[in-house]
């Protein structure tokens, strides 16, 4: 067994420096690498390019990195829940690259799987297609999208083992599996880290080969963005 276990969140972000490109898992606040984000805030690295479906809310998730002006460029599909984000974007302090959600996922997966680029119909005929190659296949138009190139991927899983194998829970899975192995170094944080052999190999969602570092997060707030309930 190749042991991927690290012992602190400081080790998790070791090697992250200014101007790097980071992938961060999560959909809204669901399944985000809370502990790694908090440590990136402590580390104070600047001019980051962050690839993440959303940008958090003002005081949680990636919003914390935005507050410290640590992000230079954000690559997301939807950024609607964050006032500070909007202010920085409108004032020109923050560069934003809006990307269709399925394209964003596939640009991660392509990087993971060793594809330099792929064709997708999403965004054909819109401003997303500007400057991109387009091509017809079987009578339908597609645009060429390139795989991402990132330095670190920070992902969050439910359970993991020392070999780096991961199991996700519910819709907290989202972009996390797509980002594993899609950057030079993948750092996984989990709610429960167990010795190798304790997870059933049949139930592993992401094999440890895609993960370089794994640690158990100290605390998970798991904030809910839109609490909706029905009455009994």
């Amino acid at each position, binding site marked *: 067994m190749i042991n991927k276990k690290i012992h602190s969140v400081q080790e998790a972000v070791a090697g992250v420096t200014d101007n790097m490109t980071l992938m961060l898992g999560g959909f809204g606040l669901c399944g985000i690498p809370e502990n790694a984000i908090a440590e990136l805030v402590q580390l104070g690295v600047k001019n980051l390019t962050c690839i993440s479906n959303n940008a958090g809310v003002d005081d949680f998730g990636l919003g914390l990195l935005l507050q410290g002006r640590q992000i230079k460029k954000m690559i997301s599909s939807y950024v609607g829940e964050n006032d500070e984000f909007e202010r920085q974007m409108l004032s020109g302090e923050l560069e934003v690259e809006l990307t269709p959600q*399925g394209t964003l996922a596939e640009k991660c997966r392509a990087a993971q799987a060793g594809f330099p680029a792929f064709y997708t119909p999403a965004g054909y005929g*819109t*401003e997303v297609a500007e400057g991109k190659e387009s091509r017809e296949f079987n009578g339908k138009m597609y645009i060429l999208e390139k795989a991402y190139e990132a330095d670190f991927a920070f992902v969050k899983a439910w359970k993991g083992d020392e070999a780096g194998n991961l199991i996700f829970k519910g*819709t907290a899975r989202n972009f996390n599996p797509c980002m594993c192995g899609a950057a030079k170094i993948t750092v996984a944080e989990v709610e429960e880290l167990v010795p190798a052999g304790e997870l059933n190999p049949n139930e592993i969602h992401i094999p440890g080969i895609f993960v370089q570092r794994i640690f158990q997060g100290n605390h998970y707030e798991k*904030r809910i963005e839109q609490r909706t309930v*029905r009455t009994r």
Partner: protein
Amino acid sequence: MLDKNGIAKRIAKEVKDGYYVNLGIGIPTLVANFVRDDIEVEFQSENGVLGMGPFPFEGEEDADIINAGKQTITTLPGASFFDSATSFAMIRGQHVHLTILGAMEVAENGDIANWKIPEKMVKGMGGAMDLVASAENIIVAMMHTNKRGESKLLKKCSLPLTGVGCVKKVVTNLAVLEITPKGFKLLERAPGVTIDEIKNATEGTLLIEGDIPEMQLD
């Protein structure tokens, strides 16, 4: 004239037995409330769940189980969770039968604009561009006119496009219309709405052939 629930009720009649359906945020979300209970339908949410159920009872919310609108949800028997790339494989690969979404503008050739108002609203397209570029059957749920009373059914969209030539049908508070090579073909009128009212509220080419029936909602 229909209210938002009325629009959802009419669209629910387009949902057929055995369909996998993706519902957008807003009026489309309401459609789930009106689907007949004698047919089997599964709702997909692009953040990674198939077999979405109703909102949880108070105290049973799970932060790890949400829909694409970031609302807490439940799942039904037979549900599954998956990653975002797999979710869009379902969509791009046309395994999802029907997409229902809202729009700011629809053009008579089926173009749709629903993600950006330059200088005003720049929140992002989320999954809308993937959905409209791939789905075989796309129904738009929206009000016929905007808050200023201007038509949202146009010859040509004025806002940045989400997708080109993709919408098949539009259900509004006034009418059901099909997109045809010649323009918006009027299929049904909302209860109590006249053809003239629909004409006045439609800027794009409106095709009226024969008698136009009133919608049957039940």
